[in-house]
């Protein structure tokens, strides 16, 4: 097709968030041993139960081996070359208000479009901004407090709600779960904590922007969200990281617990630095996300738009323990240039009449490799369980790949499981049709890709659906060939 060269020439607006904020960081020297784990815990003045838990995880991690079953190729990670803690140095004391926060930091957030100040109120968004490892600004805590909702940095919850942490931490993702999650348990630095009391509908969307800034710093944040009986909460995380030639490790853990009749909607827009066009640099994103529908009629819904990272390894899943509980997974994952994504979900049906829906949209471009890997497991107790899975792949160009690995284990004859899959290309016919109606090739591609992703985008909170669509447009700009 003659338009190809022109299309390629349009490629690459580049990574818009690749700036480095020049602030003094307080970083522990690279390397990992028990003393580092103790140091992190001591810095945060953690109670003994938490230190003990970290140490048990660390001891366990030392026995574990890095997994290599995913369809991913990357150089070995030297875990001793990483610094496990980095905090922006406070000027004097810790910031008490936004006025105390380093203006450069605020500038960074402005560039990212994080709505602080009044913008946040207008947008109805409360932001718990995590900068490297320490939360520096938390907004709207008071309005949430009126509703009884706890939304704070993880390190604060350690002191304000230790009893909730002790009860729920590690109850969905145990410290023995997997190599990266176990590492996170040992060295996690901060993250977000949410507790929604019985019967409360959280009055606003909760949102956290994560950002990796310091070079050679792994980021190991942890999020724990507890929706008590009959409560309802929607949470969005957005991620961005600066441009660097070396790879950076990101190994987060997210745990969700939904009790009777509770609902949690967790949306992710992941835009970590993907590396350059030749595959240099970029984030290694090894993330464990799991929710447990512990109560009857509970519902957990994961929606993710994964456009960034050099490597993505994540399988947000649901343990459907409660009767009539519902798990949902809606995903758009893109792999452009040399990006590799191995992502999907796990739906574990335990409760009777539990239901799950999986909709996965994979987009591959350039040399990108995109893999859907999903497990649907129906336990003997899950009478009447139902699952519906649909995996669609869209290829842009001839050098990328799409792979689908659906695993199904049904141990209950009364369960219903459906699976549909498709792979397609943006056809020249579609492109030409749009151009003939006056759209430029880029707009045409964006429109076709958005159409492909529509089922997932409509699950995102409104204000983020637009952002996700724009992000996708930037990520795939001109990636047709």
């Amino acid at each position, binding site marked *: *097709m*003659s*338009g190809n060269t*022109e299309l390629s020439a349009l490629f690459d607006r580049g990574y818009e968030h690749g700036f480095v904020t020049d602030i003094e960081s307080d970083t522990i020297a690279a390397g990992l041993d028990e003393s580092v784990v103790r140091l992190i815990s001591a810095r945060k003045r953690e109670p003994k139960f938490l230190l003990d838990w970290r140490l048990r995880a660390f001891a366990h991690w030392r026995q574990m081996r890095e997994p290599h079953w995913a369809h991913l190729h990357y150089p070995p990670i030297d875990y001793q070359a990483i610094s496990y803690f980095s905090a922006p140095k406070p000027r004097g004391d810790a910031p008490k208000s936004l006025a105390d926060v380093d203006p450069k930091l605020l500038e960074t957030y402005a560039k990212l479009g994080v709505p602080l100040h009044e913008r946040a109120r207008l947008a109805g968004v409360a932001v718990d901004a995590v900068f490297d490892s320490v939360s520096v600004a938390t907004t709207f805590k008071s309005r949430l407090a009126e509703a009884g909702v706890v939304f704070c940095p993880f390190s604060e919850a350690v002191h304000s709600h230790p009893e909730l942490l002790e009860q729920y931490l590690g109850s969905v993702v145990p410290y023995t779960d997997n190599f990266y999650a176990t590492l996170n348990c040992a060295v996690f630095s901060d993250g977000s904590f949410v507790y929604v009391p019985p019967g409360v509908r959280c009055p606003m969307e909760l949102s956290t922007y994560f950002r990796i800034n310091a070079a050679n710093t792994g980021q190991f944040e942890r999020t724990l969200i507890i929706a008590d009986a009959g409560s309802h909460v929607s949470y969005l995380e957005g991620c961005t990281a600066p441009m660097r030639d070396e790879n950076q490790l990101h190994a987060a853990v997210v745990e969700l617990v939904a009790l009777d009749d509770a609902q949690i909607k967790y949306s992710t827009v992941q835009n970590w630095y993907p590396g350059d066009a030749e595959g240099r640099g970029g984030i290694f994103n090894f993330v464990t996300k799991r929710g447990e529908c512990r109560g009857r009629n509970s519902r957990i819904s994961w929606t993710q738009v994964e456009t960034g990272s050099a490597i993505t390894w994540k399988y947000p899943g649901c343990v459907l323990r409660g009767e009539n509980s519902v798990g949902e997974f809606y995903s758009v994952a893109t792999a452009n240039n040399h990006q590799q994504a191995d992502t999907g979900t796990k739906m574990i049906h335990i409760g009777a009449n539990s239901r799950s829906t999986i909709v996965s949209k994979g987009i591959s471009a350039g040399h990108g490799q995109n893999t859907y890997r999903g497990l649907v497991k129906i336990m003997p107790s899950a009478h009447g369980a139902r699952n519906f899975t649909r995996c669609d792949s869209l290829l842009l160009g001839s050098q990328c790949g799409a792979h689908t690995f659906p695993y199904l284990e049904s141990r209950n004859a009364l369960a219903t499981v459906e699976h549909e899959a498709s792979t397609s290309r943006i*056809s*020249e*016919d*579609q492109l*030409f*049709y*749009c*151009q*003939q*109606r*006056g*759209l*430029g*090739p880029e*707009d045409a591609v964006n*429109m*076709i890709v*958005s*159409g*492909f*992703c*529509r*089922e997932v985008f409509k699950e995102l909170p409104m204000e983020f659906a637009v952002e996700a669509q724009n992000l996708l447009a930037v990520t795939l700009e001109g990636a047709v060939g």
Partner: protein
Amino acid sequence: MNAPLLQIDDLRVSVAGTAVLHGVSLTVRAGEVHAIMGPNGSGKSTLAHVLAGRPGYTITGGAVRFDGTDLLAMAPEERARAGLFLGFQYPVEIAGVNNAYLLKAALNARRRQRGEAEIDAFDFLNMVRAKMRVMQIDEALLTRGVNEGFSGGEKKRNEILQMLVLEPRLAVLDETDSGLDIDALKVVGRGINTLRSPDRAVALVTHYQRLLDHVVPDQVHVLARGRIVRSGDRELALELERRGYDWLLEAAAAVA
């Protein structure tokens, strides 16, 4: 007589190394309706696609001017914005892309070209609804994916709807009549006639003369083996209906 809107001079085109058009010349003036007829494989659709700038064709000779400018130098979307519309023989499905969304994006692209502001959403909807009634298209199709799950007839009527909304200067309709039943043909014919005006032109690419009962052409051309072998008025189409194409093909072969 009006200045030529479309002027094709000795156009030669090949596809994958095989010559398909061997020197086609044609002049279409504003206000005129031309019918381009011919047997299968004569190059009719190639001509329509080349005018719209579809990739995959090599221009080996000749020139095409649209409203005085070099059409072949323009990108497909530039041709569209300048007012050249192609009604597709096989309109493509685009899953998940709202029909109204594409239509509005297309209209705004055209308006920007003319230096006009984007159309107000309310005005757009009213205008489109009125034109849908002309084309007897169910309003529900507006919110469906582009051509997604449309019947053959719905797709063709949707093409004409797009044409009516975009109000092109030149509409090239590639076998819009194929696969239509009698009633749908009447509706499509009415739609095309709605567009007729002294400053617009229509080129109907068709296999049969039955559409010409509804849209009466000013000129009829017969394309065969990559050449225009005969031009005439409406009578020529009726003669083709009676005699078929063979007598013209034989005559063309004798000349060649």
